[in-house]
């Protein structure tokens, strides 16, 4: 068994098709197995995927295995560095073995301890970390922010799995190189094209797409991906004719990525990338498509272009990047309500790192500094009801309510600089300390944020980490940046973690955290915004992952409590996304053509505010609810089992993979949340989605 360079490949599993016998290649890449003439051998390895060979004699010619595109450039999570207690670098192939994601690696985030788990992603970005608000966390692609992580309804991330090199989940305690977030960070890194030219196509019930990659000459590689939704072709078939609904544009999306990497010389490399999406949705809540009063329309588009250069020479390393993004949100409800926001951002960013084996009596000294600016300009036209802030009761639906109006544009230039140093005092103790300064120029606010971490290697297998720091989020959510006197929301985070990694392939980590939040943005009595709120989150997280190639196991559990006080004299209450318990346990078996796995979810329902009465407003033709104690109700616990089956085979030069991912196989219909009748005299439950199957085919040429 050899690779494309003629090197032997060890630990490749070889079996005879139709039998249960298998052997593994030795260090020379050779193997022996009893098989009849003409039998088909199934050859599989984690790195090279599955291939077939035919027995045509007692000694076979060399079998050449090419790197499997689906597993190429995978970061093995048990070897990836952890950047903070509770953090993890998500391994693409391992996460592909977690059922319940519908084949979308990013949706596996919900299995991570600390991420609020629901059947479909939550919030405007799709990720809620440690019970905070969705806007408190940031989603980055290649180190730069994107406005949304998921297409509408959350079935798919805006970047397909095959375009992702790695996914880092940092629930808190991130280093000074990152900011503008008071909770956590999700980092996606797009992949550079592979050394071998290939084309991959995937079809599923939700969407279809193509990924093409390969070299251009010796020093340049490209990766191109394009995807379009399919669900808009199927969904109308499931809507009965009797329903007063006309879906003129069923949720429809396009997304695309392009990345070109070029190695200039041994010291310099450059890259350019683009990420873009378009989401479109239009429906009429009547079958009469001339009725503009019953129209709902939404279009979200963004395009981010990034150019970067990396320099590496001896102890010096530098990253230079310039990124720009334009986003366009256009939403219309009925005759009166409208929201249109066009935002342009330009973000230059530079980091310089110097590493020394020894300096000032310390070992492995790494000094890093950087700076970035985010110059933003937003043109806004809105005529909408008063925006609901976290915890506020949902207002009755009033299609004529346009009490929030604005037309104009604002600039919001933000600047940041940071510096940190990491050093080991001896083999056991390593300290990282740094400071970040953010200037939010629209309000003129400057935030100085020191952060530090102490890492203690107790034994080769056991590591303890202690982390603390200051964080801030600028006022940029919803219409926050229309008000000039708003300050950033702030947090102070303390974390402690313990990690056990006895051998390659197994890692168990536990962490506990406390976050204190201040200057939380809430409504004043006159409906303007102010920094009047404060709150805290505390909890415990456990993550265990192990694999031996054939078997893969995953266990994640988190306990969390997040509460806040919205202003002087206000009563403490839970955050909207407080989820005390979340458990995810997955087991997957992979051998030969087959991969079979299951995942069990058990998690708390989310809080909600009960309505204790209502008053009829005859002129507005609606009932105005009287809310009870904020977030004093909670949906019951939800549990479900997800199953995933993959089958891989070779058809001519094409490697084909068929997968079936089924969520909630035993049809648990627990309650997700409650809603009320139009006059609030009757209460009904939104139940969890029933069986959610996802069937897909992927071909790689």
């Amino acid at each position, binding site marked *: 068994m050899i690779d494309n360079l003629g090197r032997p490949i060890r630990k490749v599993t070889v079996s005879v098709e139709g039998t249960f016998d298998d052997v593994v290649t030795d260090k020379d890449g050779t193997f022996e197995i009893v098989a009849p003439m003409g039998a088909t051998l199934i050859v599989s390895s984690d790195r090279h995927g599955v291939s077939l060979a035919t027995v045509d004699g007692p000694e076979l010619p060399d079998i050449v295995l090419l790197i499997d595109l689906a597993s190429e450039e995978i970061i093995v999570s048990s070897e990836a560095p952890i950047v903070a207690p509770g953090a993890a670098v998500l391994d693409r192939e391992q996460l592909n073995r977690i059922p319940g994601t519908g084949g979308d690696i990013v949706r596996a985030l919900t299995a991570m301890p600390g991420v609020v788990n629901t059947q479909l992603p939550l919030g405007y970005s799709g990720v809620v970390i440690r019970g905070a608000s969705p806007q408190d966390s940031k989603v980055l692609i290649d180190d730069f922010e994107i406005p949304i992580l998921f297409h*509408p309804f959350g079935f798919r991330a805006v970047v397909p799995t095959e375009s992702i090199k790695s996914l880092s989940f940092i629930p808190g305690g991130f280093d000074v190189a990152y900011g503008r977030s008071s909770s956590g960070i999700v980092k996606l890194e797009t992949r550079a094209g592979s050394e071998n030219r290939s084309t991959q196509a995937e079809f599923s019930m939700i969407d279809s797409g193509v990924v093409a990659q390969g070299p251009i000459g010796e020093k340049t590689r490209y990766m191109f991906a394009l995807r379009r939704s399919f669900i808009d072709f199927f969904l109308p078939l499931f*809507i009965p004719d*009797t*329903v*007063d*609904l006309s879906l003129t544009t069923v949720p429809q999306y396009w997304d695309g990525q392009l990345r070109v990497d070029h190695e200039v010389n041994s010291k310099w490399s450059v890259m350019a990338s683009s990420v873009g999406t378009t989401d479109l949705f239009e*429906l009429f*809540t*009547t*079958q*009469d498509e001339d*009725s*503009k*009063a*019953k129209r*709902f329309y*939404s279009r979200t588009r963004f395009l981010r272009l990034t150019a970067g250069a990396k320099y590496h020479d001896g102890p010096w390393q530098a990253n230079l990047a310039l990124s720009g993004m334009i986003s366009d949100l256009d939403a219309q*409800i009925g*005759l009166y309500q409208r929201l249109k926001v066009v935002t342009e951002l330009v973000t230059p960013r530079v980091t310089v790192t110097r590493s020394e084996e020894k300096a000032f009596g310390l070992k492995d000294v790494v000094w890093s500094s950087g700076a970035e600016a985010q110059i933003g300009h937003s043109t806004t036209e809105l005529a909408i009801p008063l925006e609901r802030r976290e915890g506020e009761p*949902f207002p009755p*639906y009033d299609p004529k309510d346009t009490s929030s109006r604005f037309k104009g544009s604002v600039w919001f230039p933000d600047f940041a600089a940071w510096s940190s140093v990491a050093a080991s005092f001896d083999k056991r103790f390593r300290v990282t300390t740094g400071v970040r300064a953010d200037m939010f120029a629209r309000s003129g606010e400057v935030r100085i944020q020191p952060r530090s971490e102490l890492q203690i290697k107790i034994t080769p297998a056991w590591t303890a980490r202690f982390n603390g720091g200051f964080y801030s989020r600028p006022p940029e959510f919803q219409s926050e940046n229309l008000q000039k006197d708003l300050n950033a929301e702030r947090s102070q985070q303390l974390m402690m973690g313990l990690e056990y990694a006895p051998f390659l392939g197994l890692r168990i980590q536990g962490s506990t955290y406390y976050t204190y939040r201040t200057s939380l943005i809430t409504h004043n009595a006159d409906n303007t915004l102010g920094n009047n709120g404060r709150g805290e989150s505390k909890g415990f997280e456990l993550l265990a992952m192990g694999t031996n190639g054939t078997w893969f196991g995953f266990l994640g559990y988190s306990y969390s409590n997040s509460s806040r006080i919205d202003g002087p004299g206000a009563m403490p209450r839970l955050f909207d996304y407080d989820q005390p318990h979340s458990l995810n346990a997955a087991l997957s078996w992979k051998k030969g053509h087959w991969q079979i796995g299951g995942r069990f979810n058990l998690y708390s329902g989310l809080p909600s505010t009960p309505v204790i009465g209502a*008053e*009829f*407003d*005859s*002129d507005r*033709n609606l009932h*105005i609810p009287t809310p009870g104690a904020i977030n004093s109700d909670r949906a019951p616990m939800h549990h479900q089992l997800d199953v995933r089956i993959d089958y891989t085979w070779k058809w001519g030069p094409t490697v084909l993979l068929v997968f079936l991912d089924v969520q909630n196989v035993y049809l648990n219909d627990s309650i997700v949340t409650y*809603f*009320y*009748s*139009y*006059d609030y*005299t*009757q*209460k*009904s439950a*939104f139940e969890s989605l029933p069986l959610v199957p996802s069937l897909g085919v992927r071909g790689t040429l």
Partner: protein
Amino acid sequence: MRVLVVVLALAAGCTEDVDPAWQLDHDRVIAIRATPSRIVSGEVAQIDALLGRAGEAPIEADPMTAMVVEPTVLASTLTRQGTRWRVTAPGPTELAAARSELGLEADAPVPLRVRMTFPYANNVTKTGLKVIWLGEHAENPVLSPIFVEGVDRTMATMLTVAPLTDVPLEVEFDETYVVNWLTSCGTMHDFDLARSYLRVEVEDDQSGTLGVVVRDELGGVAWQMFSITAE
């Protein structure tokens, strides 16, 4: 997005365990009317309401209690005569004081916000809010013609429709008006459009009440109810 999900759920009929907004077989205040809807100094507006009742036909009723919410300087404009509540528009001086309290410009019509209660069975009361505009005159809209299956039935009190058939309903108002078609017999489709239709299935109640309520942008309201039978 939440609004969208709720609207989709309502439209898709995922709410079988709550009554839809078009269901007349339900205890509720359907509309409160001031006649006329806007009054100038010296004019009087009478207040009454249309009440829906579970298991019974809707009725027109006077408020049991009523009080001015704001402006408080005009609290005395609301009076009761017998069972009827009425608002008498005050003179220019009182209106100027009210504008001052509400922060309105000179000559702007003054909204008199009135909260009222209506009695229901088992000592239950339901509350409603109504604005009577003072300082200018406007009448309630006129609900005519009302087409049922293409025929003007404005003057009718009883209707007979065929079951298992889409029965077209129409009033001639543009989209600046809010139209609500209501029924306790069958299923109403597009209940909040000027052109709607009713369908009575075999399992539905075969008789009840059909009604239409229209609101204009000036606070005016009008309604009409019909007894309806499907056969």
